């Protein structure tokens, strides 16, 4: 597995996400493109009005899986830097839960890597979301992570 560049940033945080700071983190003179994904709390879920969400994580494992995704995208795509942050705790409508920024010399790699990163995060990172409505709360349906990720050699 390739090592993740020291200059990447992977964090689980409780406070509000600061997208501008994350973009500054990945931006450098050798780059020409940054693609960002901002995932935030929608006002409805399956037709029910959302009041707020709560996220919890298996923190050390989640951070390790986020770094693993970073290593995968460095291996697959000609990118420069990655910043990937997931917020935990309670979030209101409109608040960012996840933010990913990827810089690259050229745009195709930045798009591919950013999309692979969020798609893989949603399948493999141990984080759980509880949705609160006027009349109750449910754990979001979620995805069953692959027990042996295809992208990793069995070793």
């Amino acid at each position, binding site marked *: 597995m390739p090592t993740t560049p020291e200059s990447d940033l992977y964090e689980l945080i409780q406070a509000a996400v600061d997208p501008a700071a994350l973009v500054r983190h990945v931006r450098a003179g050798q780059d020409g493109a940054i693609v960002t994904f901002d995932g935030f709390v929608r006002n409805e879920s399956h037709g029910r009005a959302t009041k707020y969400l709560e996220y919890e994580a298996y923190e050390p494992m989640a951070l390790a899986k986020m770094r693993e995704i970073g290593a995968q995208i460095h291996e697959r795509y000609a990118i420069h830097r990655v910043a990937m942050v997931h917020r935990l705790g309670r979030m209101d409508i409109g608040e960012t839960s996840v933010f990913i920024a990827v810089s690259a010399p050229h745009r195709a790699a930045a798009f591919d890597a950013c999309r692979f990163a969020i798609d893989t995060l*949603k399948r493999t990172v141990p984080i759980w979301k509880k949705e609160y409505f006027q009349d109750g709360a449910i754990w979001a349906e979620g995805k069953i992570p692959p027990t*042996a990720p295809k992208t990793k050699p069995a070793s």
Partner: protein
Amino acid sequence: MPSVSPSVRVKVLFFGRVRELTGLTEENGEISEGATLGDLLERYIQRYPQLAGFRASLVASRNQEFAAWDTRIAGGDEIAFLPPVSGG
């Protein structure tokens, strides 16, 4: 019915729906040497029958890596039974 085989100590963590159903966040336990992750889950399902309906949707982790149910547990392992993930 005490086990006659030697036992090993494990730390077990609980998250999301599994945490709510069991009321546990973390506990230290013992299990027979040679037991698998599947064996450990069955023991929790006996103790918390309300988990049975979720058996098919859970995956296990061992020392913060996803692991197959037939993986053998070693002393000092950190185990978790993880509901479907919904981050992002």
